């Protein structure tokens, strides 16, 4: 759970959210293609990339001189799992239980 807190904290910033959003839409990108997500300096973008990397949201690989960033699918999966909350699970299940009991009366 502490991982998720870190994940959400990292996403709770407009610039970092924009970075993740762009990587989700366009796939892996070099750092240079992320500089225009916000009107801030390259070093500032670089700091945001570091935060996202440390939160496990994105990965960094090196291709020759370029650093390539991509969304880590595991982070997306853990968010989705959290979204399937217990109330939704049980309410959905109990509706089906009621229907199953009725069906076999």
């Amino acid at each position, binding site marked *: *759970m502490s991982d*998720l807190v870190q994940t959400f904290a990292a*996403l*709770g910033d407009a610039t970092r959210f924009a970075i993740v959003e762009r990587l989700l*839409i366009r796939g892996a990108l070099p750092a240079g293609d992320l500089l225009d997500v916000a009107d801030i300096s390259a070093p500032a973008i670089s700091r945001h990339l570091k935060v996202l990397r440390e939160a496990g949201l994105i990965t960094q690989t090196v291709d020759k001189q370029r650093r390539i960033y991509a969304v880590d699918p595991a982070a997306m999966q853990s*968010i989705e799992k959290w979204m399937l909350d217990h109330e939704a699970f*049980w309410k959905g299940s109990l509706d089906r239980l009621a229907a*199953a*009991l*009725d069906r076999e009366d």
Partner: protein
Amino acid sequence: MPTLTLERHFDAPPERVFAFVSQTEHLLKWWGPEGMFVPEHQLSFERTGPWMSVMKNDEGQRFKVSGHVTHVDPPNSVGFTWAWHDENDQRGVESHVTIKLVPAQNGGTQFTLSHVDLPSDEVAANHEQGWTSSLRKLERLASA
């Protein structure tokens, strides 16, 4: 500690409802929200001991949950522990589920489910407001 309590009335007697909440063949008819199916399971609340289920949705996402059946008292109640597994099959924070059945006057059953020690409220309280809509947006993107 956060507690989720859901109450329902069913038009069937407790014995019949108990069969549906304890026997594998019946559990598989309703376990998981609409759109989920259960390709792997050890799902019986007729005896104490381990249980598990793997649920999948239409998009192929896999959700595993497991625990231990702690008590079985037909046709009155069952109790079991509950924890989601992460993608590395590590069990997360454990919570506890109790289902109670009480005979209702018209021959039906008053059904109460409580799920306690849930970590999600605690997690939610730690988040800044405003990320929920962002998350929905992200989820749409991730599943596109």
